[in-house]
C-alpha cells in the first residue's frame, strides 16, 4: 500500500458519497413518497455495479479503490436501516417490511446480473 493508494481511497470514497447524496436526493424528490426510493436506487445500482466490477480481473489496488472505496461509500446499509426504523415508527409497517424484502431481493438479483454481464464480455 502506497500513499497514492491511500489518497485514492480518500478521493474515491468522497466521490462515492457525494454521488449517493445527489442520486438519493434527486430520486426521493422526484418520487415524493414515504417509501425510501432514493436509498433503494442507490443500493440496487451499487450492487449491480459491484457485481459488474467484481467480474473484471482488476489489480488489488484498483479493486480496493473501485469496490471498497467507491461503491462502499456510494451504497449505504445504515441509511437503509434508519429509514426502515422511521417507517415503523410512523406506523407504516407494510412499507417497512417491504423495504427490507424488496431491497434484499432486488439487491441479490442486481449483483448476479452485474456478474453475469461481465461474464458475457
Amino acid at each position: 500500500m502506497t500513499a497514492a493508494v491511500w489518497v485514492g481511497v480518500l478521493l474515491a470514497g468522497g466521490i462515492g458519497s457525494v454521488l449517493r447524496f445527489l442520486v438519493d436526493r434527486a430520486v426521493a424528490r422526484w418520487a415524493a413518497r414515504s417509501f425510501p426510493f432514493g436509498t433503494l436506487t442507490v443500493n440496487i445500482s451499487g450492487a449491480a455495479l459491484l457485481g459488474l466490477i467484481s467480474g473484471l480481473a482488476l489489480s488489488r489496488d484498483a479493486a480496493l479503490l473501485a469496490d471498497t472505496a467507491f461503491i462502499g461509500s456510494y451504497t449505504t446499509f445504515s441509511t437503509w436501516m434508519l429509514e426502515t426504523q422511521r417507517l415503523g415508527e410512523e406506523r407504516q409497517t407494510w412499507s417497512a417490511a417491504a423495504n427490507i424484502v424488496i431491497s434484499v431481493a432486488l439487491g441479490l438479483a442486481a449483483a448476479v446480473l452485474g456478474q453475469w454481464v461481465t461474464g458475457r464480455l
Partner: protein
Amino acid sequence: MSQSCLKLTAYFGERQRAVADRQRHGFLADAMLDLFGARDVATSVMLRGIASFGPRHVLRSDESLSLSEDPPMAIAAVDVELKIRELVDDVIAMTARGLVTLERAQLLSRADAIRDAGSRDAAKLTIYVGRQERVDGIRAHYAVCELLYRHGFAGAAVFLGVDGTAHGRRYRARFFSRNVNVPQMIIGIGTPAQVSAAAAELAAVVPHPLLTVERVRLCKRDGELFARPQQLPATDDRGRTLWQKLMVHTTEATTHDGSPIHRALVRRLLQSKTANGATVLRGIWGFHGDHKPHGDKLFQLTRHVPVTTIIVDTPDSIARSFDIVDELTANHGLVTSEMVPAVLPIDGSPRRGGTRLANFDY
C-alpha cells in the same frame, strides 16, 4: 393590559444564508434571531419543521436522510405593532427565498378579558414558556396542557423552540445546557369563553406569562365538519390582497391509508399543484379531541406526538386545499382557518403580496 400586536412569521429552509451585507454572513435563521434579540422583541421562537414544500414544489422531509439535510424553519415573533413594523423591512431584506406573514394578535399580560368574547368563531390561545419553567412543581408545558384540557379546549400542542427571545432577552438552546428559558410555543384552540377563562388562570399561575389570542374558525374536529373556511374575496375594499391560513392538528398515531395524515396531506397537496406550500411542525406534547394530553415515551415502537400542518395561501387555493384536508381528516384531526392580512412570498421574482395589512370584516 391587553395590547394590539402583530405576529410576524417567516418560513424558509434551514440551510439558507442571510442575504449578505456588511454585517451578516451566517445562516438566515441566526441573523433573524440576532435582529430580534437586538431589538428586544417581546417574544420570538424558532421552530424546526419535519416536512414542507413551497411554490417551487420541492419537497423537504425528514423521512429520507438526504431530504432531511435542509429541514424547514418557522420563526414567529410577536410584539406591539410599531416594533414589528420596524422589523419587517429588515427581515425581508435578509431573506432570499421564503414566506413572510403578518397577523393581528392580542398580547395579554394579566387577567384581561379578551375581545370578541361573544363571537361565534373560536379563538387560538398561544402561550410562550421556557423549556424548564415550572408551574406548581411540574414542567410548564405539561401543566399548561393539563389546564387547557380541563377547560375543555378542542386541542393543544407544544412545540419545542431551538432559539428565541422572551421579554426582550435572547435565549438560544445549547448542547451542554439545561436551556431553562429557551422558549416553547403552546397553541390551544377553544371557544372565546374557554380561552378567556384559561388565560385568566394562566396569567395567575405562570410566573411571567406571555399569551396571545387570535380569532380563528373551527372547521373540523374528529371527522365532524363544523364549517368550511370563510369564503373571502381576493382583495379587501382598498385592493390589498387577502390570504388565509389552515392549521391541521393531527398526531403521528392517526393515519390515512396506512401513512400518518400529515405525510399523506403534504404528498396530496404537493401533487395537487394548486397549493403553493405547506409546512409540518412536530410537537412534543399535546392533545386534540377527547384524548388526555400525550407524547412520546422513552421505550416505544411508534410515535404518539402531535403534528401540525400549516397551509398559507390565497382564498381560492385554500378552498381547493380544504377539499383535500377534508378528505384526509375524515375520522381524525382538528382543522382551523383564519384570515392572514399580509403575506409576502419571496423568491427573487416579482412579488405578489405586500406587508400592508388588509382589512376585511367577515
